[in-house]
């Protein structure tokens, strides 16, 4: 859902730029509480993986494709605000080095994918987790639902922003339907990848999953070891 240069007028690009700056600044502070010695490198890995996965567009029918957004995935793995940082870093590298996403649109992309994608994904994750059985096996399915919802909501946010500051005239109803519709389908792909990846991490290292921390007894590493585990 990378917005190129030219789609939004200057005031809107500047405004979303300001939103992005404030959000990233706030995320830097909040991530302090989410990341520690063990999970900080995890954030790096998650961001790198999301960059890679975003390259792999999958067809969703009728000549269009989707790719992983990754906000929910990152949020469940390393925390919602660390996720904002992860996605923002991915977008920055994509914009600066890959010319994927416009440079003047960086603020817009960070707002839509970094902020909306991550926070909505995490919020829905928490909601779903709250109604599922209280065990670590619920984390991946809840993450998948968070992912599923995050994508069309980000598309909705794009459309709303486009109404406010888009450079083109367009049929709002039609574009809204198309954007949310297609991104709901893309959300299915997002859910599958997110559920799979979160599931894999939860199975191998649940202690590294931010969203699973309530279900992983800290100090569970107190297993009997006969030697160094490195």
């Amino acid at each position, binding site marked *: *859902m*990378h*917005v190129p*240069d030219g789609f939004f007028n200057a005031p809107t690009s500047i405004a979303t730029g300001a939103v992005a700056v404030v959000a990233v600044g706030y995320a830097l502070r909040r991530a*302090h*509480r989410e*990341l*520690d*010695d*063990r*999970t900080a490198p995890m*954030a790096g890995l998650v*961001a790198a*993986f*999301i*960059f*890679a*996965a975003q*390259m*792999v*567009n999958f*067809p969703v029918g009728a000549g*269009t*494709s*989707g790719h992983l957004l990754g906000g929910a995935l990152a949020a469940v793995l390393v925390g919602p605000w660390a996720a904002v*940082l992860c996605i923002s870093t*991915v977008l920055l*590298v994509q914009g*600066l*080095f*890959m010319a994927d996403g416009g*440079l003047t649109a960086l603020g817009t992309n960070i707002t839509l994918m970094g902020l909306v994608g991550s926070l909505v994904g995490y919020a829905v994750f928490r909601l779903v987790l709250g109604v599922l059985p209280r*065990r*670590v*096996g619920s984390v991946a399915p809840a993450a998948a639902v968070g992912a599923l919802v995050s994508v069309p909501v980000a*598309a909705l946010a*794009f459309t709303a922003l486009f109404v406010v500051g*888009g450079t*083109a005239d*367009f*049929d709002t109803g*039609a574009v809204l339907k*198309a*954007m949310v519709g*297609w991104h709901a389908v893309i959300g299915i792909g997002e859910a599958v990848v997110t559920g799979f990846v979160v599931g894999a991490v939860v199975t*191998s*290292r649940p202690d*590294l999953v931010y969203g699973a921390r309530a*279900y*992983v*007894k*800290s100090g*569970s*590493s*107190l*297993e*009997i070891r006969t030697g*160094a*585990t*490195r």
Partner: protein
Amino acid sequence: MSADATSHQDSSRPRVSRRAFFIAGLLVTVLVAGFVSYYASSHPDGLNFVAEKHGFIAKEKESKAADSPFAGYSTKGVDNDRLSGGLAGVAGAGLVLVLMTGLGLAVRRRGSDDGDEDAAGGSDASSTRAPSQA
């Protein structure tokens, strides 16, 4: 609470070491960026598709970064499509890895929740924790 498998983790179940986990994660990332990406669909993504169908794709302006050596996820000067894309992918993923790991380490709170089973985690020279903690 009924027998909850997580709050009483089976301590005899071998757990993937942190190093193995990260190596696996990096391998998967490199594989996806460097190899799987070649097979990505070339159809326009949802936003571009809608923009085309509803007439505002024409508003798109070329990015100022279009001259970057990795613009468009291809590597300047490398003719082979596979290699060109793969290199760009790995370069980008590597850069993101370095940037975000650095950022994560910079903002993190020092130490970790449980007794860190991996000695590498406690070697932060600027840590203000008591020496016995590590």
